[in-house]
């Protein structure tokens, strides 16, 4: 393989929020004085620019750099640095599994210990991508078994993972430690059995929101009694009951356990027993937070959290009622992240709870708390940085409950440090969003979902253009935006003109013409992901991004107005893009491209595409 420093950086892009700030490391690199303390092999230097380091020194210094963006920059400096960087890299992040092949990764980075891979387009979360579309982890694992037999960590998002793959992972990688599966599908609890049985050094098993075949809770009993290394265990999204005895013993012997998230079947008194064994816990996901029988008084649980001095994250809390919620009060003062999105709390219940939560940075809620509940958020949580409000009844159009613009405004008044918001509501006004933008200029992620598509400002009846206009004009740090409501091309004009830092844009039922999409593709210099559904953007819009798509990770367009010919034209012009069309089930109109997925790649066209995916 030719280590050409100019190769596209498809493996290096970072998406993760947890980018480690390694500016210290890069400064170290530039300011190191070789005269002072280094080995005699270091060359004399005149200036920082013409520094010559032996490989060992360079690699040692580069090994301190964690940020992918910094590593990308480092690898472009010169051939020596490219090589030093590739030998010192321990973790590789692959934002689109089809942008590169496992062989290319293995050839470039010989010493990887930890891999993160994302697969399907995000709209697959909402069933817009057919099953068996792809993103199978197995081809990666078979290459890694040879290239990285000492692989320790695997983190997957939206990948297809079979039980065979999990068994392969568990048996072929003797040093395997950490497995995280988020929104994956294709496996069952049998696969988890293999992991529990064979991974002798397991530190992390994190299973979230997956399309999993739950065949029972026996997998948990497969952890051998010799396993004491577990630090993270999350099985909150699995439905079957596990053996409480096995769980209790596991928790007792794993003294380094930091994160424990159990499923709904674990009762309150069982939870209490568990907590008595792991007071060092930092993150807890409870089971059902209610009791059926009036067995003991609530006071028997009041000390449940008093020994948990390190607890900063609390989630679960299914069916939490005002009767049992006070049990968590002793832990509230230290909490920085509280996930109440599975508890149907009312406004007063939430207000009582939040009055104890002075340190909250992140809060997830159900809209049952209403605007009044959000007022309480505004008054109790001045340090809040992230708020997500999920709809309790998203598919019931008759309901007029939930939260409105007024709740959002209340929060913005009391929480000026807000930077991440996801908000589902049924009504909104331009004036409210303008006020919110003014109160919270530091937004980095603004995701507003007005649940009736194409709904205008309910007071003025105007489109919601000015709302998003005010967001992009005021919030200069905006990286991610999701828009909704009745929107004309003007919204996109604002986005293209003002969002200099925008990386991800999600659009549905918006725009009036091709111009909308063109504004965005011609503006937004940092755009990486554009996902569009049900918009009137056609061929001219698609082709206006001809020169842009190679600088992006991907484009998704479904239920728009794009023809197969336009897609073919794009594919022909840009051989380094994969232009894929997903054919619809009834295949009514073959000249239209109903679902288009365009992404840059160095791996060429997919070799594993199912029959309904056409690569043009």
């Amino acid at each position, binding site marked *: 393989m030719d280590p050409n420093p100019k190769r596209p950086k498809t493996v290096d892009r970072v998406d993760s929020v947890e980018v480690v700030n390694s500016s210290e490391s890069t400064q170290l690199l530039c300011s190191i004085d070789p005269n002072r303390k280094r080995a005699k092999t270091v060359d004399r230097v005149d200036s920082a620019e013409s520094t010559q380091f032996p490989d060992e020194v360079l690699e040692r210094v580069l090994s301190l750099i964690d940020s992918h963006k910094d590593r990308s920059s480092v690898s472009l400096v010169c051939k020596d640095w490219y090589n030093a960087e590739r030998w010192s890299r321990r973790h590789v992040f692959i934002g689109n599994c089809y942008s590169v092949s496992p062989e290319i990764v293995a050839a470039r980075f010989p010493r990887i210990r930890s891999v993160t891979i994302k697969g399907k387009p995000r709209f697959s*979360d*909402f*069933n*817009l991508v057919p099953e068996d579309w792809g993103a199978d982890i197995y081809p990666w694992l078979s290459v890694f078994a040879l290239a990285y037999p000492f692989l320790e960590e695997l983190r997957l998002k939206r990948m297809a993972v079979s039980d065979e793959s999990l068994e392969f992972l568990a048996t072929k990688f003797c040093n395997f430690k950490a497995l995280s599966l988020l*929104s994956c599908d294709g496996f069952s609890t049998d696969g988890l059995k293999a992991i529990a049985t064979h991974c002798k050094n397991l530190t992390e098993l994190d299973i979230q*929101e997956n*399309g999993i075949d739950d065949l029972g809770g026996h997998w948990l009993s497969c952890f051998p009694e010799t396993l004491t290394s577990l630090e993270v265990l999350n099985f909150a*999204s699995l439905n079957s009951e596990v053996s409480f005895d096995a769980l209790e013993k596991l928790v007792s012997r794993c003294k380094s356990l930091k994160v424990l998230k159990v499923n709904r079947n674990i009762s309150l008194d069982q939870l209490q027993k568990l907590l008595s064994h792991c007071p060092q816990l930092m993150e807890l996901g409870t089971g059902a937070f*209610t*009791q*059926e*029988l*009036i067995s003991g008084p609530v006071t028997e649980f009041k000390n449940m959290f008093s020994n948990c001095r390190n607890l900063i994250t609390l989630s679960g809390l299914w069916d939490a*009622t005002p*009767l049992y919620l006070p049990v968590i009060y002793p832990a509230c003062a230290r909490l920085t992240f509280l996930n109440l999105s599975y508890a149907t709390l009312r406004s007063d219940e939430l207000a009582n709870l939040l009055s104890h939560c002075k340190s909250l940075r992140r809060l997830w809620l159900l809209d049952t708390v209403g605007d009044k509940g959000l007022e309480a958020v505004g008054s109790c949580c001045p340090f809040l940085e992230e708020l997500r409000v*999920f*709809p309790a*009844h*998203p*598919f019931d*159009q008759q*309901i007029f409950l939930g939260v409105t613009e007024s709740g959002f405004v209340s929060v913005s008044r009391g929480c000026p440090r807000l930077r991440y918001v996801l908000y*589902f509501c049924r009504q909104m006004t331009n004036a409210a969003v303008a006020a919110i933008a003014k109160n919270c200029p530091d937004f980095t992620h603004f995701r507003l*979902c007005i*649940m*009736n*598509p*194409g*709904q*205008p400002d*309910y007071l003025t*009846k105007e*489109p919601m253009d000015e709302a998003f206009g005010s967001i992009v004009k005021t919030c200069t740090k905006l990286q991610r935006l999701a828009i909704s409501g*009745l929107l*004309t*091309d003007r919204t996109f004009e604002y986005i293209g003109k003002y969002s200099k830092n925008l990386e991800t844009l999600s659009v*549905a*039922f918006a725009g*009036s*013409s*091709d*111009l909308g999409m063109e504004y965005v593709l011609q503006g937004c210099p940092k755009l990486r992901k554009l996902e569009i559904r*049900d918009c*009137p953007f*056609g*061929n*001219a819009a698609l082709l206006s991004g001809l020169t842009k798509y190679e600088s992006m990770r991907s484009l998704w367009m*479904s*239920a*728009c*107005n794009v*023809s197969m010919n336009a897609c073919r034209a794009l594919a022909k012009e840009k051989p380094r893009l994969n232009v894929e069309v997903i054919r*619809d*089930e*009834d*295949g009514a*109109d073959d000249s*239209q491209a*109903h*679902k288009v997925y365009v992404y840059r790649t160095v791996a060429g066209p997919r070799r594993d595409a199912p029959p309904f995916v056409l690569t043009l």
Partner: protein
Amino acid sequence: MELELTLSLSSSSCFSQFDLNNYSHGNVEAKDNVYECLNMQPLKKRKYCVNGANDVESTSFIFMNPKFSGQETSLVRWPPVNKSRKKLCVGGTKPKSMFVKVHMEGDGIARKKINLNLHRSYRTLVHTLANMFGKCKEDVKLTYQDKEGDWLLAGDVPWGSFMEAVKRLKLLKNTC
């Protein structure tokens, strides 16, 4: 009359009627009569059909698929709620009401009704019932009649089993 038009499946949307050679840019035009939109001939521009301004509540924007004229198809995979969250909502959009009759001992023939689906525990149920009859919850004992016709003391079986068996409720004065 409330127009209940919904978005069709993407494969057979109105767009398939468009003649792309005539496609040109244009502005949004709010239409008063939704049916005008339905007679879209090779359109020069796409128009959004918004329900007439009279209808304040359902200002939903909708298309009708000419193929399924008269038939309703629901919005496809919207709003964007994750699968795991959707699972929690399915079948539970509104709690179904489960009304049972309640009688207070000594209250003559007066009967009241209570919606059991609003409760998740004996404690809240007793509390509510006591209030209903103007009593303190310490002064009453809750009994229920099950499917077999037997009267049992409430609280001995798990709430779920109670909910499946209960037919009628009776509050007794607490004599202890």
